[in-house]
């Protein structure tokens, strides 16, 4: 494999829990939410890497860490071999231009008081002071055409005058104007109507091909992973439990959690039936994760060792990794 464009090594993010004044006086111990707890993965150039998992498993936190929107507790992220957490000032700005993000909620990610033109033009205004207004306008119009909006029609509008799908297209156009190499897409279609999801997904894939983008795609929907992913990682409570090529992981899942997730994806053909694996209980609190394997309280195969020791992530087949005592 070529050198990966993005390398995440043992990334951690603990959020300190806010406590009341009295509590601070009574106990010394600070509590932390372990949102992301030591994850590592590589993303190959031009690939779509999917991060899958239920809500609260740390997917979005991972995205924000990779873009350096929040500082990490520990770990490294290398972009083209450069540790992005060590960057400052100009260097950071240069790298950020190459990594852009598409947010989950297009109703919240566009400034309600700005016209579409200004929204899409903002990254150029900040980063490309060398361009004239006419040049910038050309790029903005081109980007809007790329996302299949009619520039003439939308440039003067405010976000609230557009539909959810149109807004997400605007957000994509905005992410594209700087010609990034990596796009981090955080559940870009989960807030949209089912009817327009596919068109947005297709648009993303077309643009990825056209501009040879690398994409980190965050979703809880395994059907979307299958549709557009090359590689994937399944997260549970801040840890990666299984990772590998999408077809490999989805067709031959080995971790009990992944198996349960897949068994719960509805099959469109009613004549087919699949045994659903129902996992009991709730996701434990990330403030106080269970000792040993984090999945053991809900795992149908849990053994003694799972309660004591944390499983290491091992390569069971070429490129297919799993963190489970069953395979050690």
């Amino acid at each position: 494999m070529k050198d990966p464009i993005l390398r995440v090594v043992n990334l951690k993010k603990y959020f300190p829990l806010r406590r009341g004044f009295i509590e601070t006086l009574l106990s010394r111990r600070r509590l932390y939410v372990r949102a992301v707890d030591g994850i590592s993965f590589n993303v190959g150039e031009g690939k779509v890497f999917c991060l899958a998992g239920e809500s609260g498993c740390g997917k979005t936190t991972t995205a924000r860490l990779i873009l350096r929107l929040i500082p990490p507790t520990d770990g490294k992220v290398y972009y083209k071999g450069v540790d992005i957490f060590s960057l400052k000032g100009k260097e950071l700005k240069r790298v950020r231009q190459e990594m852009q993000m598409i947010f989950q909620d297009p109703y919240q990610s566009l400034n309600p008081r700005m016209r579409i033109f200004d929204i899409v033009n903002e990254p150029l205004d900040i980063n490309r002071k060398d361009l004239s207004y006419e040049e910038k306008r050309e790029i903005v119009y081109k980007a809007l055409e790329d996302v299949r909006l009619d520039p003439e029609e939308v440039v003067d509008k405010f976000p609230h005058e557009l539909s959810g799908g149109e807004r997400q297209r605007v957000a994509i156009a905005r992410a594209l104007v700087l010609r990034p190499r990596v796009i981090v897409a955080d559940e870009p279609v989960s807030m949209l109507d089912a009817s327009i999801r596919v068109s947005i997904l297709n648009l993303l894939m077309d643009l990825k091909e056209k501009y040879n983008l690398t994409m980190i795609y965050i979703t809880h929907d395994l059907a979307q992973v299958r549709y557009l992913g090359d590689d994937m990682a399944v997260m549970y409570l801040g840890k990666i439990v299984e990772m590998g090529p999408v077809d490999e992981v989805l067709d031959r899942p080995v971790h009990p959690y992944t198996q349960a997730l897949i068994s719960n994806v509805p099959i469109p053909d009613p004549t087919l039936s699949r045994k659903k694996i129902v996992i009991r209980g709730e996701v434990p609190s990330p403030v106080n994760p269970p000792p040993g394997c984090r999945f053991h309280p809900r795992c149908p195969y849990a053994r003694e060792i799972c309660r004591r020791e944390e499983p290491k992530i091992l390569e069971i087949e070429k490129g297919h990794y799993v963190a489970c005592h069953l395979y050690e």
Partner: protein
Amino acid sequence: MRLVSREKVRERMRIYKRSIREFARTYKENKMGIVGLGILLVFVFMAVAAPLIAPHSPREMWLAEPLSPPSKEFILGTDELGRDIFSLLVYGTQVSLLVGLLSTLLSVGIGGLVGLIAGYYGGVVDSVLMRITDLFLILPGLPLMIVLAAILGPSIWNIIFVIGIVSWPSVARIVRSQVLELRERPFIEASKVANASDLRILFYHIAPNVAPLVFATAVLGIAGAILSEAGLSFLGLGDPSHISWGMMLHYAHEFGALEIGAWWYLVPPGICIMLLVLSFVFIGYALDEILNPRLRRR
């Protein structure tokens, strides 16, 4: 620096014109707002065209017997120095409007900046700025104004300064609470991804989103400032070279207008103060209804 291209300016103008048209359309449907705006326009006209409307100069004394009742020549009678009360009233509009606008501008300037910085940076900066704000907030407003006005001396600029200094904390509080909510919104994060600086985020993304609400509060603030000015002047702390409505009430009181039944000296400035304050309150409520996202009906 590159010159802004003419095309860009033209495009901007077109966009602004459209925004103003949209705003005017919503405003027109608000009855209270229209009444308030109507009253205000009358007063603004009075202030601007004062030399044309007033039959006499406010400084002209001994035009008639002191405290003579309304007549054909002096429609609102004369004061204790024989000045034409109607003329005083017309010129007084200038003072009230000037003090109201400038002192509110001052309080919005200070309060807005403090609120923006405290809300956005949080932490120690926030704590320090907010404790200062609290300090100003708990100081009793009227006594403080009286003391300050007395120390600084009677000048219209001091009055403006005093009112501005006393009324900024509430603006700071409102702005801060808005900023606290706004800074967590994803569009702020989106502009951080686009390398936006703190300054840009503060003044380009957050401030315009706070502005409408501040605008509505500021208009209500003008009403408060006009009342404060009237109060200070009534207590004799006004600027004698700029006769205001409050000062007319002060002299009327001092020279016993009430005792001798000179209603023409007392009632007109009182009504003027009430109407002008009412007009700003009406406009403020109307703007609040239109601009405050929580009250907006769609």
